[in-house]
Protein backbone atom coordinates (compact mmCIF):
# COMPACT_ATOMS: atom_id res chain seq x y z
CA UNK A 1 0.00 0.00 0.00
CA UNK A 2 2.75 2.38 0.97
CA UNK A 3 4.72 1.26 -2.05
CA UNK A 4 1.87 2.02 -4.42
CA UNK A 5 1.31 5.38 -2.74
CA UNK A 6 4.93 6.27 -3.22
CA UNK A 7 4.77 5.28 -6.85
CA UNK A 8 1.67 7.38 -7.45
CA UNK A 9 2.92 10.48 -5.69
CA UNK A 10 6.61 10.17 -6.58
CA UNK A 11 7.42 11.42 -3.12
CA UNK A 12 7.90 9.75 0.27
CA UNK A 13 6.08 12.33 2.37
CA UNK A 14 3.18 12.76 -0.05
CA UNK A 15 2.97 8.99 -0.35
CA UNK A 16 2.69 8.60 3.41
CA UNK A 17 0.04 11.30 3.62
CA UNK A 18 -1.88 9.52 0.92
CA UNK A 19 -1.57 6.27 2.84
CA UNK A 20 -2.85 7.86 6.00
CA UNK A 21 -5.86 9.31 4.20
CA UNK A 22 -6.51 5.95 2.60
CA UNK A 23 -6.44 4.16 5.95
CA UNK A 24 -8.86 6.73 7.37
CA UNK A 25 -11.25 6.39 4.50
CA UNK A 26 -11.01 2.62 4.36
CA UNK A 27 -11.76 2.36 8.08
CA UNK A 28 -14.71 4.71 7.75
CA UNK A 29 -16.17 2.95 4.75
CA UNK A 30 -15.23 -0.60 5.68
CA UNK A 31 -18.91 -1.52 5.58
CA UNK A 32 -18.77 -0.92 1.80
CA UNK A 33 -16.22 -3.63 1.24
CA UNK A 34 -17.82 -6.80 -0.09
CA UNK A 35 -16.76 -9.87 1.80
CA UNK A 36 -15.03 -12.33 -0.47
CA UNK A 37 -13.60 -9.75 -2.84
CA UNK A 38 -9.98 -8.76 -2.74
CA UNK A 39 -9.34 -6.33 0.04
CA UNK A 40 -6.09 -5.10 -1.47
CA UNK A 41 -7.74 -4.17 -4.78
CA UNK A 42 -10.46 -2.34 -2.87
CA UNK A 43 -7.99 -0.37 -0.79
CA UNK A 44 -5.92 0.49 -3.87
CA UNK A 45 -9.03 1.81 -5.58
CA UNK A 46 -9.74 4.05 -2.61
CA UNK A 47 -6.17 5.26 -2.63
CA UNK A 48 -6.27 5.97 -6.31
CA UNK A 49 -9.49 7.99 -6.01
CA UNK A 50 -8.09 10.07 -3.17
CA UNK A 51 -4.95 10.69 -5.16
CA UNK A 52 -6.85 11.83 -8.23
CA UNK A 53 -8.89 14.25 -6.12
CA UNK A 54 -5.75 15.51 -4.43
CA UNK A 55 -3.92 15.97 -7.70
CA UNK A 56 -6.83 17.97 -9.09
CA UNK A 57 -7.03 20.15 -6.01
CA UNK A 58 -3.32 20.62 -6.10
CA UNK A 59 -3.33 21.67 -9.72
CA UNK A 60 -5.95 24.26 -8.94
CA UNK A 61 -4.24 25.70 -5.93
CA UNK A 62 -0.69 24.66 -6.84
CA UNK A 63 0.04 24.34 -3.17
CA UNK A 64 1.91 21.71 -1.27
CA UNK A 65 0.09 18.60 -0.30
CA UNK A 66 2.30 17.75 2.63
CA UNK A 67 2.77 19.95 5.67
CA UNK A 68 6.29 21.22 5.97
CA UNK A 69 7.27 19.19 9.01
CA UNK A 70 6.75 16.00 7.01
CA UNK A 71 9.78 16.94 5.00
CA UNK A 72 11.92 15.18 7.57
CA UNK A 73 10.57 11.82 6.42
CA UNK A 74 11.77 12.31 2.88
CA UNK A 75 15.40 11.55 3.64
CA UNK A 76 16.71 8.02 3.77
CA UNK A 77 18.28 6.17 6.65
CA UNK A 78 21.84 7.35 7.18
CA UNK A 79 23.42 3.94 6.65
CA UNK A 80 22.36 3.61 3.03
CA UNK A 81 25.37 3.89 0.76
CA UNK A 82 25.93 6.45 -1.91
CA UNK A 83 25.39 3.90 -4.65
CA UNK A 84 21.91 3.20 -3.38
CA UNK A 85 21.21 6.91 -3.57
CA UNK A 86 22.30 7.03 -7.18
CA UNK A 87 20.21 3.94 -7.92
CA UNK A 88 17.16 5.49 -6.28
CA UNK A 89 17.72 8.61 -8.26
CA UNK A 90 17.75 6.85 -11.60
CA UNK A 91 14.65 4.75 -11.08
CA UNK A 92 12.79 7.62 -9.45
CA UNK A 93 13.70 9.96 -12.27
CA UNK A 94 12.65 7.48 -14.91
CA UNK A 95 9.34 6.84 -13.12
CA UNK A 96 8.71 10.53 -12.60
CA UNK A 97 8.96 11.14 -16.33
CA UNK A 98 6.06 8.81 -17.05
CA UNK A 99 2.54 10.22 -17.46
CA UNK A 100 0.40 9.38 -14.41
CA UNK A 101 -1.65 6.71 -16.15
CA UNK A 102 1.43 4.86 -17.36
CA UNK A 103 3.08 5.10 -13.97
CA UNK A 104 0.12 3.59 -12.19
CA UNK A 105 -0.10 0.75 -14.72
CA UNK A 106 3.60 0.02 -14.21
CA UNK A 107 3.22 0.17 -10.42
CA UNK A 108 0.23 -2.16 -10.32
CA UNK A 109 1.56 -4.82 -12.68
CA UNK A 110 5.34 -4.73 -12.43
CA UNK A 111 5.76 -3.71 -8.81
CA UNK A 112 2.60 -4.85 -7.04
CA UNK A 113 2.28 -7.98 -9.17
CA UNK A 114 -1.39 -7.66 -10.06
CA UNK A 115 -2.70 -9.57 -13.07
CA UNK A 116 -3.74 -7.42 -16.04
CA UNK A 117 -7.40 -8.06 -15.28
CA UNK A 118 -7.05 -7.07 -11.62
CA UNK A 119 -5.05 -3.96 -12.46
CA UNK A 120 -7.61 -2.90 -15.06
CA UNK A 121 -10.37 -3.32 -12.46
CA UNK A 122 -8.55 -1.17 -9.93
CA UNK A 123 -8.06 1.58 -12.50
CA UNK A 124 -11.50 1.07 -13.96
CA UNK A 125 -10.36 0.82 -17.58
CA UNK A 126 -10.60 -1.88 -20.26
CA UNK A 127 -7.79 -4.41 -20.28
CA UNK A 128 -6.57 -3.25 -23.70
CA UNK A 129 -6.13 0.25 -22.34
CA UNK A 130 -4.15 -1.08 -19.42
CA UNK A 131 -1.82 -3.16 -21.59
CA UNK A 132 -1.15 -0.33 -24.01
CA UNK A 133 -0.36 2.06 -21.13
CA UNK A 134 1.84 -0.61 -19.65
CA UNK A 135 3.66 -1.13 -22.95
CA UNK A 136 4.31 2.57 -23.40
CA UNK A 137 5.44 2.95 -19.79
CA UNK A 138 7.80 0.04 -20.18
CA UNK A 139 9.29 1.38 -23.38
CA UNK A 140 9.97 4.73 -21.74
CA UNK A 141 11.55 3.06 -18.70
CA UNK A 142 13.68 0.87 -20.94
CA UNK A 143 14.88 3.94 -22.78
CA UNK A 144 15.71 5.70 -19.54
CA UNK A 145 17.32 2.75 -17.78
CA UNK A 146 18.15 0.56 -20.76
CA UNK A 147 21.89 0.46 -20.54
CA UNK A 148 21.80 -0.52 -16.89
CA UNK A 149 19.55 -3.53 -17.36
Amino acid sequence: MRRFARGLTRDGADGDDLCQMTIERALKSSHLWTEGTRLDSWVYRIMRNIWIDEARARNRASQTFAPEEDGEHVGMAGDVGIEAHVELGNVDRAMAQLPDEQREAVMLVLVEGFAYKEAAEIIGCPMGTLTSRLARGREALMRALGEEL
Partner: protein
Amino acid sequence: MSISREEIMAYVDGEMDEAARAKVTLAALSDLDLAEAIARECGLRERLQGHFAGVAQEPVPPAWEAMIRKAQSAEAPAEAPPAPVIDLAQVRRRKAEEAKAAQPRVPLSQRKWFGGAIAAALVMGLFLGGQMMRSEGPITAKGGALLASGDLAHALDRQLAANEGSTRMIATFRRGDGAVCRAFSGASASGIACHGGDGWRLEHVMPGSDASGAQYRQAGSADAAVMAIAQDMAVGEPMDAAQEKAARDKGWR
Protein backbone atom coordinates in the same frame (compact mmCIF):
# COMPACT_ATOMS: atom_id res chain seq x y z
CA MET B 1 8.11 -17.64 -35.87
CA SER B 2 7.95 -14.07 -34.71
CA ILE B 3 6.99 -13.02 -31.20
CA SER B 4 5.44 -9.60 -30.75
CA ARG B 5 6.29 -7.08 -28.05
CA GLU B 6 2.90 -7.69 -26.49
CA GLU B 7 3.65 -11.39 -26.30
CA ILE B 8 7.00 -10.74 -24.65
CA MET B 9 5.22 -8.55 -22.10
CA ALA B 10 2.58 -11.18 -21.40
CA TYR B 11 5.29 -13.82 -21.09
CA VAL B 12 7.25 -11.84 -18.53
CA ASP B 13 4.10 -10.83 -16.62
CA GLY B 14 2.89 -14.42 -16.33
CA GLU B 15 -0.19 -13.69 -18.43
CA MET B 16 0.22 -16.60 -20.87
CA ASP B 17 -1.24 -20.07 -20.77
CA GLU B 18 1.11 -23.03 -20.82
CA ALA B 19 0.92 -23.61 -24.58
CA ALA B 20 1.67 -20.00 -25.49
CA ARG B 21 4.42 -19.87 -22.89
CA ALA B 22 6.06 -23.00 -24.30
CA LYS B 23 5.92 -21.51 -27.79
CA VAL B 24 7.75 -18.37 -26.68
CA THR B 25 10.28 -20.38 -24.65
CA LEU B 26 11.10 -22.53 -27.65
CA ALA B 27 11.34 -19.54 -29.96
CA ALA B 28 13.71 -17.81 -27.56
CA LEU B 29 16.04 -20.80 -27.56
CA SER B 30 16.82 -20.26 -31.21
CA ASP B 31 16.52 -16.49 -31.24
CA LEU B 32 19.14 -14.61 -29.26
CA ASP B 33 17.44 -11.23 -29.76
CA LEU B 34 14.22 -12.56 -28.33
CA ALA B 35 16.02 -14.15 -25.36
CA GLU B 36 17.71 -10.82 -24.72
CA ALA B 37 14.46 -8.89 -24.97
CA ILE B 38 12.90 -11.23 -22.42
CA ALA B 39 15.89 -10.94 -20.11
CA ARG B 40 15.71 -7.15 -20.35
CA GLU B 41 12.02 -7.14 -19.47
CA CYS B 42 12.69 -9.42 -16.51
CA GLY B 43 15.52 -7.13 -15.51
CA LEU B 44 13.22 -4.11 -15.59
CA ARG B 45 10.64 -5.88 -13.42
CA GLU B 46 13.24 -6.92 -10.89
CA ARG B 47 14.83 -3.50 -10.87
CA LEU B 48 11.51 -1.80 -10.11
CA GLN B 49 10.54 -4.37 -7.49
CA GLY B 50 13.93 -4.07 -5.84
CA HIS B 51 13.62 -0.31 -5.88
CA PHE B 52 10.28 -0.25 -4.10
CA ALA B 53 10.89 -3.26 -1.84
CA GLY B 54 12.36 -1.18 0.95
CA VAL B 55 9.23 0.94 1.34
CA ALA B 56 7.23 -1.74 3.12
CA GLN B 57 10.08 -2.28 5.57
CA GLU B 58 10.07 1.27 6.82
CA PRO B 59 8.74 1.70 10.33
CA VAL B 60 5.01 2.32 10.39
CA PRO B 61 4.27 5.91 11.43
CA PRO B 62 2.83 5.97 14.98
CA ALA B 63 -0.13 8.03 13.76
CA TRP B 64 -1.31 5.14 11.56
CA GLU B 65 -1.01 2.63 14.36
CA ALA B 66 -2.95 4.96 16.62
CA MET B 67 -5.65 5.44 14.02
CA ILE B 68 -6.07 1.71 13.55
CA ARG B 69 -5.97 0.98 17.28
CA LYS B 70 -8.62 3.60 17.89
CA ALA B 71 -10.91 2.10 15.28
CA GLN B 72 -10.20 -1.31 16.71
CA SER B 73 -11.06 -0.39 20.29
CA ALA B 74 -14.12 1.67 19.41
CA GLU B 75 -17.16 -0.47 20.08
CA ALA B 76 -18.47 -1.40 16.67
CA PRO B 77 -22.20 -0.83 16.21
CA ALA B 78 -24.10 -4.09 16.04
CA GLU B 79 -24.88 -3.79 12.34
CA ALA B 80 -21.33 -3.00 11.32
CA PRO B 81 -19.21 -5.84 9.93
CA PRO B 82 -16.70 -7.17 12.44
CA ALA B 83 -13.15 -5.93 12.80
CA PRO B 84 -12.17 -4.49 9.44
CA VAL B 85 -9.05 -3.25 11.16
CA ILE B 86 -7.62 -6.71 11.44
CA ASP B 87 -7.86 -7.04 7.70
CA LEU B 88 -5.90 -3.89 7.14
CA ALA B 89 -3.26 -5.06 9.53
CA GLN B 90 -3.09 -8.29 7.62
CA VAL B 91 -2.62 -6.45 4.37
CA ARG B 92 0.23 -4.55 5.88
CA ARG B 93 1.83 -7.67 7.28
CA ARG B 94 1.54 -9.46 3.99
CA LYS B 95 3.08 -6.53 2.16
CA ALA B 96 5.96 -6.55 4.61
CA GLU B 97 6.48 -10.24 3.98
CA GLU B 98 6.42 -9.71 0.25
CA ALA B 99 8.97 -6.98 0.55
CA LYS B 100 11.13 -9.26 2.65
CA ALA B 101 10.94 -11.91 -0.01
CA ALA B 102 11.82 -9.36 -2.64
CA GLN B 103 14.65 -7.85 -0.66
CA PRO B 104 17.66 -9.94 -1.74
CA ARG B 105 16.79 -9.54 -5.36
CA VAL B 106 19.75 -8.43 -7.46
CA PRO B 107 19.87 -7.68 -11.16
CA LEU B 108 19.28 -10.71 -13.33
CA SER B 109 22.67 -10.36 -14.92
CA GLN B 110 24.36 -10.82 -11.54
CA ARG B 111 22.38 -13.73 -10.24
CA LYS B 112 21.55 -15.77 -13.28
CA TRP B 113 23.15 -18.87 -11.94
CA PHE B 114 24.66 -19.92 -8.71
CA GLY B 115 28.11 -21.39 -8.44
CA GLY B 116 28.57 -24.99 -7.32
CA ALA B 117 28.80 -24.40 -3.60
CA ILE B 118 25.86 -22.03 -3.50
CA ALA B 119 23.83 -24.33 -5.67
CA ALA B 120 24.54 -27.19 -3.29
CA ALA B 121 23.52 -25.13 -0.27
CA LEU B 122 20.44 -23.91 -2.05
CA VAL B 123 19.41 -27.36 -3.10
CA MET B 124 19.92 -28.67 0.42
CA GLY B 125 17.66 -25.97 1.76
CA LEU B 126 15.11 -26.14 -0.96
CA PHE B 127 14.54 -29.68 -1.64
CA LEU B 128 16.56 -31.94 0.56
CA GLY B 129 15.57 -30.44 3.87
CA GLY B 130 13.27 -33.00 5.38
CA GLN B 131 13.86 -35.46 2.59
CA MET B 132 17.50 -36.15 3.24
CA MET B 133 16.87 -38.67 5.94
CA ARG B 134 14.28 -40.47 3.92
CA SER B 135 14.93 -42.69 0.97
CA GLU B 136 15.76 -40.62 -2.08
CA GLY B 137 15.23 -36.93 -2.74
CA PRO B 138 15.31 -35.40 -6.21
CA ILE B 139 18.99 -34.52 -5.92
CA THR B 140 21.94 -36.37 -4.47
CA ALA B 141 25.56 -35.33 -4.20
CA LYS B 142 28.13 -37.76 -5.52
CA GLY B 143 31.85 -37.19 -5.94
CA GLY B 144 31.45 -33.42 -5.80
CA ALA B 145 28.73 -33.35 -8.45
CA LEU B 146 25.01 -32.96 -8.00
CA LEU B 147 23.04 -35.75 -9.60
CA ALA B 148 19.34 -35.86 -10.28
CA SER B 149 17.62 -38.71 -8.47
CA GLY B 150 14.14 -39.87 -7.61
CA ASP B 151 11.31 -38.11 -9.40
CA LEU B 152 13.53 -35.55 -11.06
CA ALA B 153 15.80 -38.23 -12.54
CA HIS B 154 12.75 -40.12 -13.72
CA ALA B 155 11.30 -37.02 -15.37
CA LEU B 156 14.62 -36.28 -17.08
CA ASP B 157 14.82 -39.88 -18.29
CA ARG B 158 11.28 -40.29 -19.49
CA GLN B 159 9.41 -37.04 -19.92
CA LEU B 160 9.26 -35.31 -23.28
CA ALA B 161 8.73 -31.58 -23.67
CA ALA B 162 5.18 -32.18 -24.83
CA ASN B 163 4.28 -34.17 -21.69
CA GLU B 164 2.67 -32.70 -18.60
CA GLY B 165 4.32 -33.24 -15.27
CA SER B 166 5.09 -31.51 -12.00
CA THR B 167 8.39 -30.60 -13.65
CA ARG B 168 8.27 -29.27 -17.20
CA MET B 169 10.95 -30.03 -19.74
CA ILE B 170 11.64 -26.72 -21.46
CA ALA B 171 14.20 -27.82 -24.01
CA THR B 172 16.63 -30.57 -24.96
CA PHE B 173 19.89 -29.80 -26.72
CA ARG B 174 23.50 -30.94 -27.17
CA ARG B 175 26.34 -29.01 -25.69
CA GLY B 176 29.89 -28.66 -27.05
CA ASP B 177 31.14 -32.08 -25.90
CA GLY B 178 28.15 -33.83 -27.43
CA ALA B 179 26.37 -34.59 -24.15
CA VAL B 180 22.58 -34.31 -24.18
CA CYS B 181 21.33 -31.61 -21.82
CA ARG B 182 17.80 -30.80 -20.73
CA ALA B 183 16.45 -27.54 -19.35
CA PHE B 184 13.68 -28.13 -16.82
CA SER B 185 11.39 -25.99 -14.74
CA GLY B 186 9.45 -26.98 -11.68
CA ALA B 187 7.83 -25.64 -8.55
CA SER B 188 10.78 -26.34 -6.27
CA ALA B 189 13.65 -25.92 -8.72
CA SER B 190 14.55 -25.13 -12.29
CA GLY B 191 17.80 -25.77 -14.05
CA ILE B 192 19.80 -27.67 -16.60
CA ALA B 193 20.99 -31.26 -16.34
CA CYS B 194 23.37 -33.00 -18.72
CA HIS B 195 23.50 -36.73 -19.23
CA GLY B 196 26.76 -38.51 -18.41
CA GLY B 197 28.03 -41.91 -17.35
CA ASP B 198 26.55 -41.64 -13.90
CA GLY B 199 23.15 -40.22 -14.82
CA TRP B 200 21.89 -36.64 -14.98
CA ARG B 201 24.44 -34.19 -13.66
CA LEU B 202 22.94 -30.88 -12.60
CA GLU B 203 24.90 -28.15 -14.29
CA HIS B 204 22.73 -25.30 -13.08
CA VAL B 205 20.10 -25.08 -10.40
CA MET B 206 17.96 -22.18 -9.37
CA PRO B 207 14.89 -21.78 -7.21
CA GLY B 208 11.69 -22.88 -8.88
CA SER B 209 8.48 -20.96 -9.27
CA ASP B 210 7.41 -21.63 -5.65
CA ALA B 211 10.66 -20.66 -4.06
CA SER B 212 11.37 -17.45 -5.88
CA GLY B 213 8.34 -15.53 -4.74
CA ALA B 214 5.22 -16.65 -6.52
CA GLN B 215 3.50 -13.47 -5.43
CA TYR B 216 5.55 -11.67 -8.03
CA ARG B 217 4.83 -14.21 -10.72
CA GLN B 218 8.46 -14.99 -11.20
CA ALA B 219 7.93 -18.17 -13.17
CA GLY B 220 8.57 -16.32 -16.40
CA SER B 221 11.75 -14.91 -15.01
CA ALA B 222 13.06 -18.34 -13.94
CA ASP B 223 12.24 -19.82 -17.33
CA ALA B 224 13.93 -16.94 -19.08
CA ALA B 225 17.06 -17.38 -16.99
CA VAL B 226 17.16 -21.13 -17.67
CA MET B 227 16.64 -20.36 -21.32
CA ALA B 228 19.42 -17.80 -21.48
CA ILE B 229 21.90 -20.33 -20.07
CA ALA B 230 20.67 -23.09 -22.35
CA GLN B 231 21.24 -20.76 -25.24
CA ASP B 232 24.84 -20.24 -24.20
CA MET B 233 25.48 -23.95 -23.68
CA ALA B 234 23.73 -25.31 -26.75
CA VAL B 235 25.52 -26.23 -29.94
CA GLY B 236 23.14 -25.94 -32.86
CA GLU B 237 19.39 -25.84 -32.62
CA PRO B 238 17.39 -27.32 -29.75
CA MET B 239 15.91 -30.73 -30.54
CA ASP B 240 12.45 -30.88 -31.98
CA ALA B 241 9.88 -33.37 -30.70
CA ALA B 242 11.01 -36.18 -33.01
CA GLN B 243 14.70 -35.70 -32.23
CA GLU B 244 13.95 -35.55 -28.53
CA LYS B 245 12.05 -38.81 -28.66
CA ALA B 246 14.82 -40.45 -30.70
CA ALA B 247 17.40 -39.28 -28.17
CA ARG B 248 15.33 -40.73 -25.35
CA ASP B 249 15.03 -44.06 -27.14
CA LYS B 250 18.80 -44.18 -27.47
CA GLY B 251 19.27 -43.57 -23.76
CA TRP B 252 20.22 -39.90 -24.19
CA ARG B 253 23.63 -40.72 -25.66
